[in-house]
C-alpha cells in the first residue's frame, strides 16, 4: 500500500516515466547476472544483492557521473557499497557498463577471477573496500570532505544495509556528516528489514530510524526501493539540496524479484543456487514479474 507521500512522489515523476522504464530494464539485467553469478560461483549473497538491484541500476545508469573506460577519473562520482556482501549487484552493473569483460561474472569469488567475494579496490569501478559493516559511511564522508577541500565537484553515494545501522561507527559518521553539512554526500538505506539470522526488529530494533537520522541533521526521505522512478526523483532532489547531507530510506524486500527468495533471511548468506532454482528464478526475472508489481 502506498502512502500519501509516495503517491505524491509518483505523480511528480510522470514526465520521467521513460527514464524509469529504462532503469527498470537495467535492474532486470542486473538481477539476471546476479543470479547467474551466484549459481556459477557457486555461492554469494543472493537476498541482499537482489534487494539493492534497483538502487544500483538507478545510480549507475541514471545518476552517477562516471567514465567506465577511465575508472579512476578523479572527478567521478563515488559509490560505496557499505553492505559489501551484496557486491554481485554492483559487479553486474559495472560489467554491464563495460568496466571489465563479462567473462569475469562467471569467475566471481574464484581464485582466477577479478571479482572478490567482497568489494576490493583492485576491481575497476570499485571506489572503496567494504564488507566489514560500519565502515562505508565513514569512508564516504571522508571522500565528500576531501572533495570539498580539493574543490572537486563530485557526489558520494553510500548504500547502507539495515544491519549496517547497528554498527556504532555508522552513527559516528551520521553525526559527523551532519556536523560538517556535507551536501555532496547521499546515503541510501536498503531497508529490507532482514539481517543474517532473522528480522532486524527482533535482533536489534533501532526504529524510528528516520527520526534518529533526521535528528543528526540529515534530510531524510522514504521511497519504494524497487521503484526506479521514485529512487531517481529522490536522488535528484538530494543533488539539489544545499547545506545538508541526504538520507534515502529505500523500503525493499530481500530477494526481490524471485518469489521463493523474497523476504526470507535464509537467502542472506553464501547460499548456492541449484540449476533448477536458477532456471525458476531467471524465468521469473526475465518473464517480467518485476514489471507487473
Amino acid at each position, binding site marked *: 500500500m502506498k502512502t500519501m507521500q509516495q503517491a505524491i512522489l509518483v505523480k511528480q515523476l510522470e514526465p520521467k516515466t521513460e527514464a524509469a522504464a529504462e532503469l527498470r530494464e537495467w535492474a532486470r539485467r542486473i538481477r539476471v547476472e546476479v543470479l547467474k553469478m551466484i549459481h556459477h560461483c557457486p555461492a554469494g549473497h543472493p537476498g541482499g544483492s537482489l534487494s539493492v538491484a534497483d538502487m544500483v541500476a538507478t545510480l549507475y545508469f541514471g545518476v552517477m557521473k562516471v567514465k567506465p573506460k577511465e575508472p579512476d577519473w578523479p572527478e567521478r562520482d563515488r559509490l560505496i557499497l557499505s553492505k559489501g556482501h551484496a557486491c554481485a549487484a554492483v559487479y553486474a552493473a559495472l560489467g554491464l557498463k563495460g568496466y571489465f569483460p563479462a567473462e569475469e561474472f562467471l569467475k566471481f569469488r574464484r581464485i582466477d577471477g577479478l571479482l572478490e567475494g567482497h568489494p576490493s*579496490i583492485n576491481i575497476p569501478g570499485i571506489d572503496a573496500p567494504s564488507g566489514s559493516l560500519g565502515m562505508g559511511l565513514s*569512508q564516504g564522508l571522508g571522500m*565528500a570532505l576531501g572533495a570539498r577541500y580539493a574543490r572537486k565537484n563530485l557526489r558520494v553515494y553510500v548504500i547502507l544495509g539495515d544491519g549496517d545501522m547497528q554498527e556504532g*561507527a555508522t552513527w559516528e559518521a551520521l553525526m559527523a556528516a551532519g556536523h560538517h553539512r556535507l551536501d555532496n554526500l547521499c546515503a541510501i538505506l536498503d531497508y529490507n528489514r532482514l539481517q543474517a539470522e532473522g528480522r532486524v526488529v527482533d535482533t536489534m530494533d533501532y526504529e524510528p530510524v528516520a527520526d534518529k537520522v533526521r535528528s543528526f541533521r540529515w534530510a531524510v526521505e522514504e521511497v519504494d526501493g524497487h521503484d526506479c522512478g521514485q529512487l531517481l526523483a529522490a536522488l535528484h532532489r538530494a543533488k539539489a539540496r544545499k547545506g545538508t547531507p541526504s538520507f534515502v530510506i529505500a523500503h525493499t524486500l530481500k530477494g526481490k524479484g524471485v518469489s521463493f527468495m523474497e523476504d526470507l533471511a535464509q537467502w542472506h548468506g553464501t547460499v548456492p543456487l541449484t540449476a533448477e532454482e536458477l532456471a525458476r528464478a531467471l524465468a521469473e526475472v526475465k518473464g517480467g514479474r518485476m514489471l507487473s508489481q
Partner: protein
Amino acid sequence: MNVPFEFFPAGEGVSLRDGFGRALVALGQVREDFYLFDADVQGGTGAKPFAQAFPERVVQFGIAEQNTMAAAAGFADTGLIPLVVGFSAFTVMRAHEQLRTAVCYGRRNVKVCCSHLGVDVGPDGATAQMLEDLATCRAIPTLKVLVPACANEIQPMLAAVLNEPGPVYMRIGRSPSPVIYPQPGPIEVGKAHVLRPGSDVALISCGTRVAAALAAAELLEGEGVSARVVNLRSIKPLDLEVIQDCCEEVGALVTVEDHNIYGGLGSAVAEAVVQMQPAPMEMLGIRDRFGRSGEHHELFARFGIDVPDIVAAARKVLKRKR
C-alpha cells in the same frame, strides 16, 4: 625541499610531541597537501601549533576514532593527504580494523601519527600506555612503521613520512627525552642509523630507549666493553643490512623497547636474526604486563627497560657469545 625546521639544543630533555608540533608547522609552510585529522586531541598529541598556524587545514571529528580513521581513507582518495593524530591506544587500537581494511587494504595514502606510547606516558597509567602498537601495526600488510628517537629526529622523519607513498604509522612519545641528534639529516624509510660504533655487543632500540642505550654504552665502555648503538627507526621495513652487520661483525645483540616483549622491535630483530648467521640475543621490553602510574623514568626502571637493565643484559649476552 628546504624545510624551515627549528631544532632543539642537543642533550636537552624535550618531549617528542613538541618536536612533532614543530615538524608539522615547518612542513605546513612548504607543502599544502596535508590536513590534520583531529579527534579532539590537538593538545595531547602536540599538534596544536599546526592547528593555530593553519586552522583551515584541520578537520575535526570529535572523539570518534573509528570514523576519523575510515574518513581519512576516503579523504585520501581525493588526492589530499590526511594526517591522523591521536593517542595510540585509541587511534590505533580502537580504529585498528579501519586502519587495516579502509586504509591499508584500500591502498590509501594516510599517515597516522600517535603520541602516548609505552610506559613513557607516565602518570596517566595503563589505559593510555599503548604497549602493543608495534606488534599490531607490523602485522598489517603494507603498513610501514617508523619510530623517532628524539624531538629533533621527528622533524625530518615526518618529512619522509609525507613523501612516502601509502600508509605509514609513526610512534611518537610524550615525556621529555634527551635530544640525540643536534642537526638530523634526511631520513630514509627502511634504514636504521648506527649512532655509535662498537664491536663487542650491539644495543638495538627505538624511540626514547635509544637515549638509554647510548647511556648504557657509555657505562659499558668504562667496563672495557665496546657497544654499538643502533637506532632502529624503521621497524617496518626493517634494515636487514644493519642487523646482519650486528650479527656478523659484533655477534651479540641486546634489544630494548618501551613495548610488550611480544611482537615489537625485539621480535622484529629476532625474526631477521634467525634467518641470518644467528647471534645470541637478549630482549628487553615490558614482560607481558600492563603498565601503571608513575613518572616515566620511574616506570622505565620498574619495568626493566632502563640504563642499568641494558648494561646487565649486555653482560649476560656477552657470556653467551661464541
